[in-house]
């Protein structure tokens, strides 16, 4: 690493960025199926992720049906229920969010936003997608093997994950582990691309601190993923061996329904540590790209520079680093050495500080802005509301003593749905609306967008807010049915039914979204090349949607950061990154130089 170059002017300035060997497709198959163009791969990733995500969404309806109306649906047995939650959780976290943010948005946006023609290793990029698809197929296959998919919870804790008392403990769990291993291999290939592309293939003038925060978020999340997924890989490999070969890595001596098993001496907690050493960074892997994207949505639609850009970047990096030393906050009541609680409670709450700073900077971006309440903006605001709510409940759980009564209750479920199941999903929706005109060249329908937003935002909030209080009451998570207790009032059942009804409504509302997207892609109004009047490079492509190679014969040159909105003295309220200073006279005020009096803002 002693190779950091001083890229400063005082050094020999090398010529333009080395051209990536552009791969040129020759037939339909190489253009759209086995494509090596990052934009096509992005679309492939996104469609696959959304398709499998919809499966998980349907599973969540089934779960809600059971929880809201127990004893009503004969086809949902206890086995089935546990299989549903496991598949639901795993698909949503890994196969939907991780794949969509990094594989989908990463592939589409990184090259365009940093001014590259494509990813640095297009072939590896293509492989990455196909391995991901294979992982998804293996996962789907696990639903159709004898015994069904695993029902061990998405945390897959041994010993139960591989013992007969758990549904899907035969082929189900093995396929799950295989699928995860495949995902990790495929992801690593993609991840290499994102990191190397950001480091080496930026266009001239695009210094690190001129990158849009979207790229920063995806970049740091990718690095986290490269470092964290190995832990899951190691755990998955060792658990498969315990299952298949009968080794005892995680398996102590066990009496399984009256019979002593052959296992001996292993430590189940070892798996939990490995899992969460991966698992906690994982939740930030799905949060950081969301943080980045939402920053850009806010800045663009509030016509204001993102507030405190440098702090925002540093916060992303610091959060990323810290996320590796908080993992055991998932294990306060796991039976680990109890003295770890002090350390992990402290690190966990420290992480709230940089995160809070990000929240403040988002709302300070709105402050003194010029807010256009477009659909993406609405989703961004929805994100702030739900993220702050969910983040704050994280602070409850992070404080070891408070976690003791709340752990494994619906409070935890509410926390992570707010902060992960709703907030980033809102960002994804916002981002899809935002970049839809770029990807398809057409505009979506505004009214449908409004309806979709309000139903999803208010609905999701109404689903998960009450669950906190059920958790406080002591209603456990992962319970097929609560049946009789001495302490849960009858009204809790009603509340659960209400939640289920809302969940189904919100679920159905997604049809509006799908319809809007599909219909608009063919029939929507032709969109402006830069409908939001945004500064970043992806909006400055010569063709719309961008063609193969992204930028035509010459790569753009970047003269400014990504947030020159409402610069005093400028004619327009945005200056694209590739506009040189000479072309926008009178804008020195925005650049920290004394401002000509005539250009003082009105207020």
């Amino acid at each position: 690493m002693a190779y950091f170059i001083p890229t400063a002017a005082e050094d020999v300035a090398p010529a333009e960025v080395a051209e990536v060997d552009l791969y040129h497709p020759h037939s339909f198959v190489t253009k759209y199926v086995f494509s090596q163009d990052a934009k096509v791969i992005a679309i492939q990733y996104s469609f696959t992720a959304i398709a499998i995500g919809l499966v998980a969404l349907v599973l969540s309806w089934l779960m809600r049906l059971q929880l809201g109306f127990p004893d009503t649906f004969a086809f949902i047995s206890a086995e089935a229920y546990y299989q549903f939650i496991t598949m639901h959780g795993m698909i949503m976290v890994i196969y939907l969010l991780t794949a969509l943010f990094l594989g989908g948005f990463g592939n589409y946006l990184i090259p365009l936003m940093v001014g590259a023609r494509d990813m640095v290793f297009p072939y590896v990029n293509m492989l990455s997608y196909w391995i991901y698809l294979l992982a998804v197929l293996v996962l789907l296959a696990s639903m159709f093997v004898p015994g069904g998919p695993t029902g061990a919870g998405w945390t897959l804790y041994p010993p139960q994950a591989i013992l007969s008392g758990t549904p899907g403990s035969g082929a189900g769990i093995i396929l799950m582990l295989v699928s995860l291993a495949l995902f990790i291999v495929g992801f690593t290939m993609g991840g290499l691309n994102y990191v190397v592309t950001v480091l080496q293939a930026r266009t001239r003038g695009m210094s690190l601190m001129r990158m849009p925060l979207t790229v920063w978020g995806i970049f740091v999340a990718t690095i986290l993923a490269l470092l964290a997924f190995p832990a899951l890989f190691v755990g998955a490999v060792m658990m498969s061996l315990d299952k298949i070969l009968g080794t005892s890595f995680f398996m102590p001596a066990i009496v399984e329904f009256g019979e002593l098993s052959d296992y001996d001496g292993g430590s189940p907690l070892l798996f939990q540590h490995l899992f969460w050493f991966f698992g906690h960074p994982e939740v930030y892997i799905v949060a950081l790209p969301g943080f980045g994207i939402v920053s850009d949505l806010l800045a663009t639609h509030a016509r204001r520079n993102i507030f405190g850009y440098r702090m925002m970047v540093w916060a992303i990096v610091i959060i990323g680093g810290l996320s590796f030393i908080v993992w055991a906050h998932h294990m306060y009541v796991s039976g680990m050495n109890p003295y770890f609680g002090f350390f992990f409670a402290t690190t966990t709450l420290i992480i709230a500080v940089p995160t809070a700073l990000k929240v403040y900077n988002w709302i300070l971006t709105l402050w003194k802005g010029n807010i256009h309440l477009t659909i993406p903006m609405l989703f961004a605001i929805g994100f702030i509301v739900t993220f702050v709510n969910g983040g704050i409940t994280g602070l409850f759980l992070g404080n070891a003593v408070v976690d003791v009564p709340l752990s494994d209750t619906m409070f935890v479920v509410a926390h992570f749905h707010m902060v992960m199941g709703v907030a980033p999903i809102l960002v994804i929706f916002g981002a899809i609306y935002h970049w839809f005109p770029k990807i398809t060249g057409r505009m979506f329908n505004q009214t449908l967008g409004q309806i979709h937003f309000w139903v999803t935002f208010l609905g999701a909030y109404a689903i998960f807010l009450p669950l906190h209080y059920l958790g406080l009451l002591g209603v456990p998570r992962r319970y097929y049915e609560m049946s009789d207790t001495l302490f849960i009032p009858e009204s809790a059942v009603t509340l659960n039914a209400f939640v289920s009804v809302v969940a189904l409504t919100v679920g159905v509302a997604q049809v509006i979204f799908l319809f809007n997207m599909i219909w608009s892609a063919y029939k929507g109004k032709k969109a402006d090349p830069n409908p939001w009047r945004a500064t970043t490079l992806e909006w400055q492509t010569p063709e719309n949607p961008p063609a193969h190679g992204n930028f035509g014969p010459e790569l753009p040159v970047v003269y400014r950061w990504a947030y020159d909105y409402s610069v005093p003295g400028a004619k327009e309220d945005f200056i694209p990154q590739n506009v040189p200073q000479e072309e926008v006279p009178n804008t020195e005020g925005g650049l920290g130089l004394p401002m000509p009096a005539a250009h003082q803002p009105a207020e």
Partner: protein
Amino acid sequence: MAHAEAQAGSHDIGQQHPLGIYFKIWAWLFVLSAASYAVDYFQLEGALRWSLILIFMMLKAGLIVAVFMHMMWERLALLYAIVVPPLLVLVFVVIMALESDYTFETREIFFAIGP
């Protein structure tokens, strides 16, 4: 303070105001030494005591290395970029070592036949 520093210009931190920064460092060293003495003074015990003393020591060493020995911020930033990831894995290693000792002990205490 940090504000002022940022104002000093991102271009040449530490080079435009060499004297100012030396004074600042000197003050910090003073504060850190005072903190180390305070650990003694308040008779903090056990792991806390040693970890605090070590932390203060390392902070001081880092400061001296970074500034007085002219390695400056540049290398420090580099150093962090290289050193921090292994450190994070190291935290995992330490925690796991403690954890396996703990498991071993509970087994020794409560279980009949050393398995």
